[in-house]
């Protein structure tokens, strides 16, 4: 179809496609734009698109009034912490499943997936009570454990598919040369799997950063990440749209960048290899 397309057809179709794409992107664009307005301009009708006094005061105020960086720091600690803990478990597990499979490896993989499919409300009550009794509510440690566990199946699965692509001969050759198991994993397997491990980590950071069921239910202030911080804007006092936009822009910016870089791997991770 496309070979025969006329230049005019190419141009008009491009214009059409860009209009559609910009409409989909519009809410994000509008949020970023509003974050540079004063509160009065943010609610003005008709809305101002360019001709307003660009200001950075919202960004300053978000930090001053609500200690934004504390929540951002929690988000970073939870996302990175759960990813690192998950990596230690997932690498060993995926290594075993990819290179030393048993008859039950496939069942184990599918069973791991099935845990991901259980709705969180099914275990909300006992987890909440256990966290309360053990003093884990609103602690970073508790949330790192939860985020690590809910994403572990995806990490194992993704690493498994990457490890499967590595020829076993190379690992065997290393073993012949007298490499011990830890050496084999650290010096032979991991360097070859760096791209796969990196994209697994990125996907896990994205999922942990945006997770909003457990973070809303198990935190109040000390360990609250950005999801909970933004949620606190749902019952505002006074004018707040510009500040909400500034806080939101800061909260989504890093993950948007990471997400754009890892969009290909995302398909692999989220469909468990069912679509290639």
């Amino acid at each position, binding site marked *: *179809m*496309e070979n025969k397309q006329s230049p005019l057809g*190419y*141009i008009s179709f*491009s214009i059409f*496609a*860009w209009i559609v794409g910009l409409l*989909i*992107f519009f*809410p994000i664009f*509008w*949020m970023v734009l509003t974050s540079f307005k004063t509160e009065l301009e943010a*609610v*003005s*009708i008709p*809305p101002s698109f360019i001709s307003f006094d660009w200001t950075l005061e919202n960004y300053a105020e978000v930090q001053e009034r609500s200690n934004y960086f504390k929540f951002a720091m929690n988000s970073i600690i939870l996302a990175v912490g759960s990813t690192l803990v998950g990596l230690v478990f997932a690498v*060993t*597990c995926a290594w*075993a*499943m990819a*290179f*030393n499979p*048993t008859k039950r*490896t*496939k069942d*184990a993989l599918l069973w*791991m997936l099935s*845990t991901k*499919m*259980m*709705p*969180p*409300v*099914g*275990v909300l*009550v*006992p987890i909440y009570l256990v966290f309360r009794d053990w003093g884990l509510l609103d602690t970073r440690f508790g949330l790192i454990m939860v985020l690590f*566990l809910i994403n572990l*199946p995806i990490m*194992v699965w993704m690493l498994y598919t990457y490890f499967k692509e590595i020829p076993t001969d190379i690992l*065997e050759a290393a073993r012949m040369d007298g490499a011990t198991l830890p050496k084999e994993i650290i010096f032979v397997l991991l360097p070859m799997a760096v791209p796969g491990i990196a994209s697994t980590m990125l996907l896990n950071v994205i999922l942990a950063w*945006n997770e*909003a*069921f457990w973070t*809303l239910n198990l935190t109040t202030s000390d360990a609250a990440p950005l999801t909970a911080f*933004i*949620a606190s804007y*749902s019952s505002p006092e006074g004018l707040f*749209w510009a500040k*909400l*936009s500034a806080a*939101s822009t800061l*909260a*989504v910016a890093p993950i*948007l960048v*990471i997400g*754009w870089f890892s969009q290909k791997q995302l398909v692999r991770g989220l*469909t468990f290899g069912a*679509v*290639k």
Partner: protein
Amino acid sequence: MSTRASTLTGRIMSAPSIIVLFLWMAVPLGMTIYFSFLRYNLLSPGMEEWIGTLNYEFFLTDPAFFASLANTLLLVGSVLVITVVGGILLGLMLDQPIFGRGILRLLVIAPFFIMPTVNALVWKNLLMDPVSGMFAWLASLLGLPAIDWFTNVPLTSIIIMVSWQWLPFAVLILLTALQSLDRDQKEAAQMDGAGPVAIFFYITLPHLSRAITVVVLIETIFLLTVFAEIFVTTGGGPGLATTNIAFLVYTQALLQYDVGGASAGGIVAVILANIVAIFLIRLIGKNLDK
């Protein structure tokens, strides 16, 4: 390779992950099942007693359950239709030569990376506010009355927000599938005089069927438990208009402290999700054998 020693190391190395996941899933699930048979309210500690299936009878005959079940199905069904149809159309669009296609694709998939609480509040305040929102202004340009989205059509508003978030997921997967479509086959059909519509229905759509199934199953699992978008915008209201099963269980557990009732609700949610999960696991399992 599969000597007895290596099988053993394999078991030892995969054991930690399997054990922690088992503890994380099976133990709390067991506790939920146990609680669901108790009269257990956090406001009256020490009064727990075995009441059999009474919690289930209350939960399943509660009008709130039917309302939230209907809302859940409506939410999941509408978002699925919107994202799959939209995903196919956008996937086909992005599969064509377009000026700056790489950048355009980034813009289209961006909503997927927006955290749910940001998504909900940006839509509620900046776009859907009946006085100062973008939509109210657009309506006034057209001479139409502004819609008070979250009062008059609350569930539709939630559906729009959630669809916007999940549309990129469908686009990403369907586009990936479209790109693996055999060009020769399409060209051969064209030679034989097949029009674009015929090519779409007889070649493209059958090729996409598997990817569509995956999108439907995975989205269903996530959409059954939509929570944050409801939590920060409507709080389940007005009335029960936007309460889904996940939110109903949450209100029973953490707002009414009814552990027994909430546990029964949680088990009902698990059963609903499992109906979908069985199909998905089978599909992925078949793929694993290839």
